[in-house]
């Protein structure tokens, strides 16, 4: 019973990592850049939803929709203003810019909304299901379901739609894709839009499960999710999903059975071992470079 209840909290935490990791992996897969500002877009989404629900008393659904819209637009604006001018620049420049954007968002949030913590209202209440001794909260169930739905929807989208195919083409070879008449810039913008929309959903679920909202709320989950994406194989959608879930479960089990002090050390040791054995991550594709 103890094992099961830890498994469930691990899955709940892991699903949130997974949704964030999906955003990371999408952007990395297509634009080949690490968008370190992703975690902060999550935080913005949570604030939008918080204010919609608490200050304007809008129903949760409207709050979530608003958060998704704002984050989608924000993602596209960030891409246009900060990353597009650097399309031809070395990837290190883009990485540093992403870190800059991350700090910008955190500090802007602190200016706008102050850093006194806010308590996020759960979007679906605090209900729970009792199965014998086991309690599962509605938020946990919702998180796992939403995570699965997003994973399948994204897999289908990239595999079967025209836009999705364009994305995969850009991912393989930008130059060749452009020669084939694909609007590479448009596709990358679209990727950012989708990734940021997902970030908003992740933010709302994150704060529903763990309700303290401060301007740095997104940064640590963002880093853990990035780890999850690498763990699962960055660029791979099912990989991000698997990596996120595993990371959450390992973290919870490490806390429960090894030591609450050492849980992070355990998580990252597992990561190092996996990467030593499979450098491309669990489900990552190994691409042989021709020299």
């Amino acid at each position, binding site marked *: 019973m103890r094992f099961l209840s830890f498994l469930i909290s691990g899955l709940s935490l892991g699903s949130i990592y997974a949704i964030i990791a999906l955003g990371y992996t999408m952007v990395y897969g297509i634009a080949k850049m690490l968008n370190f500002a992703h975690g902060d877009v999550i935080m913005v989404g949570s604030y939008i939803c918080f204010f919609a629900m608490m200050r304007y008393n809008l129903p949760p659904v409207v709050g979530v929709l608003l958060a998704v819209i704002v984050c989608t637009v924000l993602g596209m604006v960030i891409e246009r203003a900060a990353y597009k001018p650097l399309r031809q620049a070395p990837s290190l420049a883009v990485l540093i810019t992403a870190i800059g954007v991350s700090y910008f968002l955190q500090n802007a949030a602190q200016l706008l909304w102050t850093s006194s913590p806010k308590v996020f209202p759960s979007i679906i209440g605090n209900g729970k299901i009792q199965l014998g001794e086991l309690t599962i909260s509605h938020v946990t169930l919702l998180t796992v379901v939403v995570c699965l739905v997003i994973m399948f929807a994204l897999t289908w989208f990239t595999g079967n739609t025209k836009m999705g195919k364009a994305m995969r083409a850009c991912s393989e070879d930008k130059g060749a894709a452009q020669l084939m008449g694909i609007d590479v810039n448009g596709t990358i913008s679209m990727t950012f839009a989708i990734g940021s929309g997902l970030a908003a959903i992740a933010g709302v679920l994150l704060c529903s499960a763990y*309700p303290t909202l401060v301007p740095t709320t997104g940064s640590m989950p963002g880093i853990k999710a990035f780890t999850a994406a690498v763990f699962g194989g960055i660029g791979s959608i099912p990989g991000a999903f698997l990596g996120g879930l595993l990371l959450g479960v390992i973290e919870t089990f490490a806390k429960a059975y090894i030591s609450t002090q050492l849980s992070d050390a355990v998580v990252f040791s597992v990561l190092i071992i996996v990467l030593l054995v499979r450098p491309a991550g669990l489900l990552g594709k190994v691409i042989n470079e021709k020299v």
Partner: protein
Amino acid sequence: MNKKLFSVVLAVLMMAVCVSGVMAQDTIKIGGTGPLTGGAAIYGNAVANAAAIAIDEINALGGQQYELRYEDDAHDAEKAVNAFNALLDWGMQVSMSSVTSKPAEATSELNMEERVFGMTPSASSTAVIEGKDNVLQMCFTDPNQGSASAAYIANNDLADKVAVIWKNDDVYSKGIYDTFMAEAEELGLEVVSDTTFSDGNDTDFSVQIADAQEKGAELVFLPMYYTPASLILAQADAAGYDPIFFGVDGMDGILTMEGFDASLAEGVILLTPFNADSEDEKTAAFVAKYLELYGEIPNQFAADGYDVVYALVGAMEEAGVTADMSAEEINDALIETFETFTFDGVTGENMTWSDGAVNKDPKGMIIQDGAYVGLD
């Protein structure tokens, strides 16, 4: 701006600073730094507001006039040092040190070096007063909070089996934890569950809560600030676990979090030296004034800030400090006076200081219907 104009402006500013420093003054300048913005802003603003009330009250009596200035340090040691230097430039003669521990550890060094007497309202780390002859605390030191909490739990028979959840990368939490454990062992309290968390790992507490619940802890001791504490309360509630939660001064502020469901904090006990519903005349007047000006019941940090002003002013009067004395002269006079000075304030009676630490009795408080109620 061209360079010439810029240098002229700078020169004028420098003149202004010099002149203001030289001019004979009739007020004594008291300065302090605290987080007026940022994550710990609740604490900084409480202290600054309450100190302003105390200064106004003292000035209204006529007699020696005082001037108060608070600079923002955003709970950051580096910013606190800059803020402290800004206060020195302003002509600060007596310091209220800093509100929170990390900044105060930095500014108290300056108090020592620059020979400016300092008294912190609420920076509870021992490093703030250690090795300094001119920095005092109005609040308990961290170790004192830990042993006082254990003693309170044992003496009032609150529980036999106790769980502790603490933050292992935070000096404040660790300091309280260490002395709590030592005292608990001495008094025969059984600590059945001892779990930790750290920065970045402070969202999911299900494991820590499950551990305490399984081992049958009747009381959970939370030596931490209110942000993680609020998550623990919510998650324990979700897990159907309802022990007594026992906090320290960092718990103060939990009721003012925006969106916080106060019913979660129902029955939480915290040890603080200040009780806002006390019938004591001085306390009642202070609470009424604070409520009128700032629209909320003052917390313990506010009370500490209020007391610091009165203690400093009281000691300066006893020492015969005048406005034309330099910071160093005042410093020497106050060091001598505080050796024997006793003070009655809103956070305790007959307070005295030894080696910078205060001697006073903590009071137990319980949260009932979204407000603090005194237990004694």
